[in-house]
């Protein structure tokens, strides 16, 4: 293999580039990213960075003096993959020919239809999003967060700490019920009301009102919630439209085997854009978590360099963390299919909980709130139990 092109220059792309060098790949390495920035860390964007506690320099993912001997093509978007020519086409007309391709284009924040061009309405996915939102939050006022998922909850928590008046609107009856199940979703989202942040559940958003600047959120039940700033936190979609027609099978992202390989030879996918087969779950899963974007590329790159399937082993159960209102939330495993959840330690009212999800008596997931030690023990047990 003489040239490898990595498309996407964030955590998963950087991690793939590192894995290539670590695994002895010595050829030409081209990293393509549409953002103008060097790879940076996203989790702080809704937390310490949004709060103004850390700056741009602290987000840098590369370490001092790190040199991957890569050509970085930043600020340029990939628009297509030509399987026959084995080339990535770029928006500026250039073409990068390569023998191997790593797709690491991540995900993009979903927007609210009709909200484009209305000042005061934000999404949060990129550094530029965070800079714009941080400036607005600094002016204070009434913030309405649409979506009670992790990003929405973190923004609410950060804004609350900055002194804003915060309302969170969630269309589902219980926030976080998707990843955590209804019972634990209720307990974790109770953090909002503990702090006097209003949480409105089970009601959809009809639209936004305002001339050039948003002034309210209109709910489907007829209520109007006044707003100076609106953050839309309604999830993300995988950035794979540029691969349409390339022959790479797309199904909720790039559909991959357990070793990261796509339907096209010499093409692997990693990070938030990739829908890997998870042998633990017996299904494909697209996992939008930091740790997977960091760890999985080593396997995908091994597949690429080996020119085919490799023995990938069973990956650790997916893991993520979240920080809200000073509480450390950690989760590992898959809650779907669990038939029971029990609190093994702590108390729901204190928001200090170690809860274990089981299916037919076997642990399949674990949730911790301010329980890092026990959580790690359970996370290990989970890895051992289902491997």
């Amino acid at each position, binding site marked *: 293999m003489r040239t490898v092109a990595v498309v996407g220059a964030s955590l998963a792309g950087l991690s793939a580039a590192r894995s290539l060098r670590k695994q002895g790949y010595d050829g030409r390495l081209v990293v393509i990213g549409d953002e103008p920035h060097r790879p940076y*860390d996203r989790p702080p964007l809704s937390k310490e960075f949004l709060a103004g506690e850390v700056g741009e320099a602290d987000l840098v993912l590369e*370490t001092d003096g790190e040199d991957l001997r890569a050509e970085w093509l930043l600020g340029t978007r990939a628009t297509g993959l030509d399987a026959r020519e084995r080339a990535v086409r770029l928006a500026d007309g250039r073409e990068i020919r390569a023998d191997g391709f790593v797709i690491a284009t991540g995900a993009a924040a979903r927007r609210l239809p009709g909200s484009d061009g209305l000042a005061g309405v934000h999404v949060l996915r990129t550094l530029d999003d965070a800079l714009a939102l941080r400036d607005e939050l600094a002016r204070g006022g009434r913030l309405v967060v649409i979506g009670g998922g992790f990003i929405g909850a973190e923004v609410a928590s950060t804004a609350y700490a900055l002194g804003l008046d915060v309302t969170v609107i969630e269309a589902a009856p219980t926030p976080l019920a998707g990843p955590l199940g209804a019972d634990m979703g209720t307990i974790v989202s109770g953090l909002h009301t503990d702090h006097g942040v209003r949480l409105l559940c089970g009601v959809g958003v009809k639209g936004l009102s305002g001339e050039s600047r948003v002034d309210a959120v209109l709910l489907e039940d007829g209520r109007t919630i006044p707003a100076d700033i609106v953050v839309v936190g309604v999830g993300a979609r995988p950035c794979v439209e540029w691969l349409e027609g390339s022959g790479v099978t797309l199904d909720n992202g790039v559909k991959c085997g357990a070793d990261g390989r796509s339907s096209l030879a010499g093409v692997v996918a990693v990070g938030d854009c990739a829908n890997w087969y998870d042998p633990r779950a017996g299904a494909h899963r697209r996992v939008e978590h*930091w*740790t997977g974007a*960091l760890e999985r590329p080593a396997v995908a790159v091994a597949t690429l360099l080996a020119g085919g399937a490799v023995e990938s082993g069973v990956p650790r159960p997916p893991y993520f*963390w979240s920080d809200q209102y000073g509480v450390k939330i950690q989760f590992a495993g898959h809650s779907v299919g669990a038939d029971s959840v029990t609190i093994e330690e702590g108390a729901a009212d204190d928001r200090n909980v170690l809860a274990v999800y089981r299916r037919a008596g076997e642990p399949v997931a674990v949730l911790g709130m301010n329980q*890092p*030690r026990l959580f790690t023990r359970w*996370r290990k047990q989970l890895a051992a139990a289902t491997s």
Partner: protein
Amino acid sequence: MMIPACRLADLPRGEAIRLDVEPPVSVFHTDDGEVFAIDDTCTHQDASLADGWLEGCEVECPLHASKFDLRTGAVDAPPAKLPVRTHEVVVEDGMIYVKVSTEAPNLPPCVSARLAGGPA
């Protein structure tokens, strides 16, 4: 400074204990039977490495997955960027002693601020 940690027999393989010195130090007994001591606080944020995931000679921070090499203190990948201090370990008469390093620790900004009496 040489501080007694615990009896080797009381620290099973694969386990760690935290010593409440300032800043805290943790002692790891690896699955291979080796004993190491490093600063307990992750250099990224306020997490206890004794609560982390021990595998071989590496401990993974319980929060954000940076891994530290117990032998050298080196960190593998961000979010943590600085190594932790390592400390010399002596096992004598079945007792583990830690000789605390005199180097300056790499504490995360939030912890150094608290130690300096500033806001947490």
